[in-house]
């Protein structure tokens, strides 16, 4: 298992390199340059000033050199200065915003996993009865409806009609509720669907029948025998779900005015903030890859049949 983990970690390097290269190429293929004035229709900077700026940011060098320099610095965690926020380095911005996104994501994921498992188990135990329909409905809505649409409905319902929560901000835990729930609903739906399917399969398995036959009560049958085994396929879901929560948080963060990393991403895209774009994409990439690795390792722990 240790060998497997090391092997996977080593694979991370070419993957990230490729990711950085693709991003870098797409970015520089983009018409428009960071030296263009930020305001629309403003007069361009004088050629001399542009040349000086380009030299300061290293934009005057040939592309392959720029990429090399970027890599050499990025390895040390130095992503350079942001082009938009000229007084701050990208690392500073990320250090300030990433924890917020991480907190929001973790809360959302916790809600999604708990809610999804509960809904899925209820649906399977009461198959084709009341609870099943409730849970399938919630799951389908969660999966199908985009989170920025959910956000609109939630704000209207829980901020305007029933003023329970503020419409945005990030100052107190009360602000956290709506964004976290909005972000959680999609992944929750997916988990609920998979849990239901997986539980239904396990409930019909021979060992569950044996457990019932030896006279166990329903609760231990469900939780000790069925649920544990049903959990295994669900764990694989967590990797992609982290990705969903990560990208989903852009929209949720911008609607609920959460000062996280997601907001900077869109801003950096439209502002051609090259260092920021690279940093955000790579941060997500590393984060996702590590989550995927953790998930795969957990899988092995849960299911002793799996050998690496």
């Amino acid at each position, binding site marked *: 298992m240790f060998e497997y983990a090391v092997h996977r970690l080593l694979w991370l390097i*070419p*993957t990230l390199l*490729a*990711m950085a290269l*693709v*991003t870098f190429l*797409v*970015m520089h*293929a*983009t*018409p428009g340059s960071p030296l263009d004035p930020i305001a629309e229709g403003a007069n361009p900077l004088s050629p001399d000033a542009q040349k000086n700026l380009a030299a300061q940011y290293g934009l005057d060098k040939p592309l392959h050199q720029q990429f090399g320099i970027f890599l050499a610095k990025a390895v040390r965690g130095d992503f350079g200065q942001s082009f938009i926020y000229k007084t701050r380095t990208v690392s500073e911005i990320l250090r300030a915003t990433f924890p917020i996104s991480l907190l929001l994501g973790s809360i959302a994921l916790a809600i999604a996993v708990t809610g999804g498992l509960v809904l899925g188990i209820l649906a399977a135990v009461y198959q084709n009865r009341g609870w099943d329909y409730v849970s399938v409905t919630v799951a*389908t*809505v969660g*999966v*199908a*409806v*985009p989170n*920025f*649409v959910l*956000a*609109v*409905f939630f*704000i*209207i319902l829980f901020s*305007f009609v029933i003023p329970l929560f503020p*419409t945005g901000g990030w100052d107190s835990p009360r602000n956290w509720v709506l964004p976290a729930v909005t972000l959680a609903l999609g992944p929750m739906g997916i988990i609920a669907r998979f849990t239901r*399917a997986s539980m*239904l399969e396990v409930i019909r398995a021979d060992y569950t029948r044996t457990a019932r036959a030896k006279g166990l009560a329903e609760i231990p049958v469900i939780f000790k025998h069925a649920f544990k085994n049903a959990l295994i396929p669900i764990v694989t879901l967590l990797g992609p779900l982290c*990705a969903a929560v*990560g*990208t989903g948080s*852009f*929209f949720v963060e*911008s*609607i609920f005015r959460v000062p996280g990393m997601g907001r900077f*991403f*869109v801003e950096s*895209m*439209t502002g051609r903030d090259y260092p920021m*774009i690279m940093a*955000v*994409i790579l941060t*997500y*990439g590393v984060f*996702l*890859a590590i989550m995927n690795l953790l998930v795969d390792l957990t899988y092995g722990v849960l299911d002793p049949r799996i050998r690496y």
Partner: protein
Amino acid sequence: MAGGVVIVLMALVAVLADFLAPFSYTKTNFGALNEFPSRDHLLGTDALGRDLLSRMIYGARISMVVGLGAQVIVVLIGVPFGALSGYIGGRVDIALTRFIDVMYAFPRLLFVILVMSALGAGLLNIFIAIGLTGWVGIARQTRAQVLSLKEKEFVEGARALGAGYVRVLRRHVMPNALTPIVVAVTFGIPEAIFTEAALSFIGVGINPPTPSWGQMVGEGQQYLRSYWHLCVFPSIAIAVTMLSFTFFGDGVRDALDPKMQ
């Protein structure tokens, strides 16, 4: 089933938009800005006095076109890629799968946004952006199918009779690999619709003044407290569309693949 009915209705609305819409989607009326729903304007008007209902009817067109059009590109790239990778095998397969894995590791929506900001807003660019990023899933699925099918006796039989690569793939392997691809495509449609809405929501999708539901939600969301109708109606449209396609996809999957429950 209900999903299918809504989809047919939506498609009709999209095709007949010119006849159904009471106003032009670009016609501004500065005497009637941000009006709430009334008899003149059934769903109200937006910040430029444009009829919201008309804009939503034309918005259906964008959603449908993107949903279907993007899938065509996805299939055109993904299926041959996956089929060749699986069928040829060996080094080619290793190289192609590595490439697929790297693409898979990319946070997809980020990549779409990146490509969109590189290409600029616009309908054609949305197709390209979704096509460039969406084919990975289908390629994986096709590869898996082809891998298992190519060992079957009937494929071997075809090869023994002297059929070439292309013929074996086209006439013998692909028809049998079709089911999961069809299912993946039906689920891909709402995903593409979602992607367009999301892109337009943050302002890198459809170019104004062409109406898109996502863009309408994005703009309306700023005035949510004062003019709720700007945001709510397009939101409902997106939600209903996405739900219908999801139900439809579930139905298609159950019909084509009796093993899945």
